[in-house]
């Protein structure tokens, strides 16, 4: 059985240009994949996540974009991802940073959200090296592969827009069914919203929001989340993995960098304080603010 096969020629080309290894296959019928959503410059969480992934003997790891945002020292995350040769895609942050854009194109509509998004972006832009920005420009916008017999499509926001928010409570099954059909996929993995969820559709099809490791999931807990997917033939199993990390160290660094107190509060309390007007009713009701 050919368990994994790169489908998109553009991605294959990109990956070979970056000398990335193809999916490493273990001698096992089940393939285990790890997906890391928005990292938001949370280097400490990335280190903890990669350690956890390494302990589990995962076959392949992908990042899904938005390497920078709320956190400090935005060069650390791309440096580590590049050093480890981890494959991934652009988020709206990478698209903006690599094209000298004046804002993050996060897709917010409320002035309160945009106010804090601009602070994040300006700091990240000013503190990201040109070399990393150029590398971000070389990242693909999507990755396709086959695992088991499932066609995977990795995107940042949605298959149709890099900054589209796929929230659980506003992504009903008929809509997801259409996305999967329109984009010729059995499994879509995305991020961008900051909240992880999974909907299983008929015929073993799935849409998975991998969540983020950049900030907690607005649930009053300080841990962050990445996603493991186990695939065997047409069977797909999804596990959201909580990751504890040294969030106090992160908070200290954020303060030293004079990032807003509101950002620090989110890291220390697990409740979102900014960029939450975009939340739909159900997700908004679940948080403290």
């Amino acid at each position, binding site marked *: 059985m050919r368990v994994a096969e790169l489908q998109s020629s553009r991605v294959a080309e990109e990956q070979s240009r970056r000398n990335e290894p193809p999916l490493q296959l273990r001698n096992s019928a089940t393939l285990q994949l790890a997906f890391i959503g928005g990292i938001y410059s949370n280097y400490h969480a990335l280190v903890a996540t990669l350690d956890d992934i390494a302990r589990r003997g995962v076959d392949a790891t992908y990042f899904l974009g938005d390497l920078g945002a709320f956190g400090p020292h935005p060069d650390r995350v791309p440096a580590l991802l590049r050093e480890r040769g981890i494959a991934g895609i652009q988020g709206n942050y990478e698209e903006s940073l690599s094209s000298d854009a004046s804002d993050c194109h996060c897709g917010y509509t*409320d*002035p309160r959200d945009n106010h804090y998004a601009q602070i994040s972006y300006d700091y990240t832009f000013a503190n990201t090296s040109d070399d990393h920005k150029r590398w971000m420009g070389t990242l693909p916008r999507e990755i396709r592969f086959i695992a088991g017999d499932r066609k995977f499509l990795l995107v940042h926001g949605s298959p*149709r*827009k890099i900054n589209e928010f796929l*929230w*659980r*409570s*506003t*992504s*009903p099954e*008929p*809509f997801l*069914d*259409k*996305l999967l059909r329109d984009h010729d996929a059995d499994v879509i993995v995305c991020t961008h919203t900051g909240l992880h969820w999974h909907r299983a559709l008929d015929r073993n099809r799935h849409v998975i929001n991998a969540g983020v490791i950049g900030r907690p999931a607005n649930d009053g807990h300080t841990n962050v989340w990445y996603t493991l997917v186990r695939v065997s033939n047409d069977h797909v199993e999804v596990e959201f993995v909580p990751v504890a990390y040294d969030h106090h160290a992160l908070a200290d660094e954020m303060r030293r960098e004079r990032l807003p107190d509101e950002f620090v509060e989110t890291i220390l309390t697990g409740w979102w304080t900014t960029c939450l*007007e975009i939340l*739909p*009713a*159900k*997700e*908004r*009701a679940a*948080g403290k*603010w």
Partner: protein
Amino acid sequence: MTASIPLLALDTLWIQVAGTLCNIACTHCFISCSPTNDSHEMISLAEVERRLDEARELGVREYYFTGGEPFMNRDMLSILEATLRQGPATVLTNGMLLRSETCRRLRELSDASDYSLDIRVSLDGFDAESHDAIRGRGVWDKVMTGLRNLADAGINPVITVTTAAEGVETNEGRARFLDIIRNFGFTKPRLKVLSLFRIGAEETRTRAYEEWERIANESLTDDEASTLQCSSCRMVTSKGVYVCPILIEEPEAKMGETLADTLRPFPLKYGACHTCWVDGVTCRT
């Protein structure tokens, strides 16, 4: 040559459940809804269910209910119950008919669904005087009662304010509105500012569109098109399916009888199109 806008995807389905029937007659209403306007009629639960079936086939993402005043439709709660089995729903209301029992039931419907239910309540001023000047005498007090009932039921509405409320576009104006919302006990105040369309009653209150107020582009890129809601919505009324919730008094804006009839591009030739384009307006929350 007028630019046409393609339907990139039918994400948002608007349903005018109350027709043009409303319990008030706001001076800025773009379709002049009132207690006597029966230009478009109410839509029954059975008709909504037929539209939901059509929408499921087309992969619609979200449903918006408007009027007139949606809660004048006696089936409104049943309509929401049916809709929330299929996707997220938003109701645009003037807030006057939000009785305690209605709000309690809305909360139950919201809790029972996997999808979001949003209630959007219109305010048009910072106080009774400015609000009632647009919406009618005594309306402010009734809306205040409705908002308190929502708060008691634990429903956090989106408050929408049109630019008829002077100063709402400034930071100070927004802050003032957020304070008003907080004072009702909503600790997570949600506010959306809406543009006015110079059609219907608003044409008399201020002025009609000038001839130059039209979209000048001869064509739009998909990115430009995606900023306009008509690239991803349609509006169902008792008369058929229209391009958007604004243009339902334009005969040519009726695109067909079924949703599948209306998936073609639409010419952006109206003054209201100019407002959406210039202001970056979307009626969506």
